[in-house]
């Protein structure tokens, strides 16, 4: 009996260790974002401190110029946050419009080369993004798409569209075929069946898939780094905070927290869909 108690305690302790290892860096960066510059650069590191909002004020240009260590420097972090939201939401919407019908077709139709097409779409998961960026960069320069939201939403399809197609295919396959057949017997046409029968049943799955795909779009860095100059997404704007000569850890910590809060909130909503999403629907 005591042996059992010992094992249970040990396992609980191990769980705590695993959780601390995963949570500590995030807690630490949140703490840093509320520290004054002197506390951040202090050694040994400070665990108890007087919290300040200065870093966030500097990040969003809300501070009086004289009141901070950074003078009149403008960061204007709200703009990259908005750019990321516009690009990611736009990319998800376009992917839904183009991808859900394709996912439905792959789930419900038999046609020649179907599996080849499905595999081709999966192949985008293997695609080296940088290889496509080099020609993309020249194409964007030539037609004037560089630094436009339209262009960015389009290139983000490289990441979001294959995912939406595969996920919606896997969700359609979960819907019993009989429901559609019943509707067909009642005289409904295919587009009607899709819009009025399948789509409502698909909605919860599509919400989850959209959340995940939004995450992927939010994460992206390489596309924004090369194809934008002013309308940079959050990830690229963060890296720019590292460049100035002054120690920027305090303000960067605040920026990091902002870039992390959005996905954390979303995943709390869509936790159930994480497994299926991360594995292209291979796990349900």
């Amino acid at each position, binding site marked *: 009996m005591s042996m059992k108690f010992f094992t249970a305690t040990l396992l*609980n302790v191990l*769980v705590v260790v*695993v*959780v601390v*290892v*995963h949570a500590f*860096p*995030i807690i*630490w*960066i949140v703490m840093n974002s509320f520290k004054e510059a002197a506390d951040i*650069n*202090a*050694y*040994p*590191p400070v665990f108890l401190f007087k919290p300040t909002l200065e870093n966030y004020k500097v990040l969003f240009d809300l501070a009086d110029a004289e009141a901070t260590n950074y003078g009149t420097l403008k960061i204007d972090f709200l703009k990259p946050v908005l750019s990321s939201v516009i690009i990611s939401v736009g990319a998800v919407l376009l992917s839904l419009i*183009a991808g859900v*019908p*394709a996912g*439905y*077709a792959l789930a419900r*139709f038999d046609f020649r080369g179907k599996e080849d*097409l499905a595999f081709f*779409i999966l192949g985008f998961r*293997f*695609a*080296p*993004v*940088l*290889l*496509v960026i*080099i*020609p*993309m*960069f020249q194409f964007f320069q030539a037609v004037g798409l560089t630094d436009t939201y339209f262009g960015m939403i*389009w290139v983000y399809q490289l990441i979001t*569209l294959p995912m939406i*197609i595969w996920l919606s295919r896997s969700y359609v396959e979960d819907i019993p075929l009989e429901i*559609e*057949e019943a509707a*067909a017997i009642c005289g409904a046409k*295919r587009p009607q069946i899709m819009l009025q029968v399948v789509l409502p049943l698909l909605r919860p799955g599509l919400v989850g898939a959209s959340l995940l795909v939004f*995450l992927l779009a939010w*994460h992206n*860095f*390489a596309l924004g780094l*090369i194809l934008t100059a002013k309308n940079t997404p959050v*990830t690229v704007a963060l*890296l720019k905070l*590292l460049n100035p000569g002054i120690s920027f*850890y305090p303000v960067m910590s605040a920026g990091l927290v902002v870039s*992390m809060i959005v*996905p954390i909130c*979303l*995943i709390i909503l869509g936790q159930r869909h*994480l*497994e299926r999403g*991360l*594995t*292209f629907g291979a*796990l349900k």
Partner: protein
Amino acid sequence: MNHIKAKSGNAFLLISLLPAVLILGGFVVLFFWGFYQSLTDMRFGRARVDFEGFGNYARLFGKVRFWDSVSATAIYAFTAVACEAFLGLAIAKLFNAKVLLAKWFRPAILLPLVLPPLSVALMWTTMMNPGTGVLNYFLNFIGISNFPWTSSADTAMFAVIFIDIWTFTPFFALIIFAGLRGITPDIIEGARMNGTKAWGTFWRIELPLVLPYILLAALFRLIDSLNQFDIIFGTTQGGPGSATDVLSVSAYFTAFQNLYFGRGAAIMIVNWVMVLTSAMVVAKLWQYARKRVS
């Protein structure tokens, strides 16, 4: 679906597939254009482009720095994925055991997966600062002082692999956990009845049953790690020297800093071939492992 008329079905099929195929087809055209570029001496800002066959590749293959990049890419990806698979299996086993705290804290270990990899990289950069970083503060307690992390060529690779492992071990844990849940208690009971000991059931029953899950996770992670750009660009940018100069980072600097577009594209093609062959091997292993247990 015989009840639904085939004729209208064909038009419907075409309309539903066309937008997606057009968008993705555009990327395929760009991919081939990229391959063509790798066969030229294209430079940014110079109008003249000469076709030179495999000249870029021949020049790359003759350079030590290129082979450093190839091995850095392989070391980074395979070490990270192997460690993640091992740790992920351990964590999945732990969280699958009937432990009170495991039930409460399960969502917490998923956190790293939802953060932007670049944010993760920058987060660790601040913690890995050799002078003031909190990691070296902790290391002091076990007698290690001034560990250089990303600032020394000897430890930089370890540091970036460490970040990859922290970020993506939960991915393995999540998928292996799904596999473990699929093993019903009566399978384990059956083995116990036949006199198999705890470790025996793990090696002979559990592990073969979750192996397809491990390999599936490895497939996804290997592709991403071989292509990894954000974590390395956010921490070391390939340095110090060429210590962490993986192919994708090397291609970025070749193409967008030195403006050798053709050579950059050639580096990415090599990267792509590495991804493709590794993925194909792991996919074959996955199919084999799945067939064996079904």
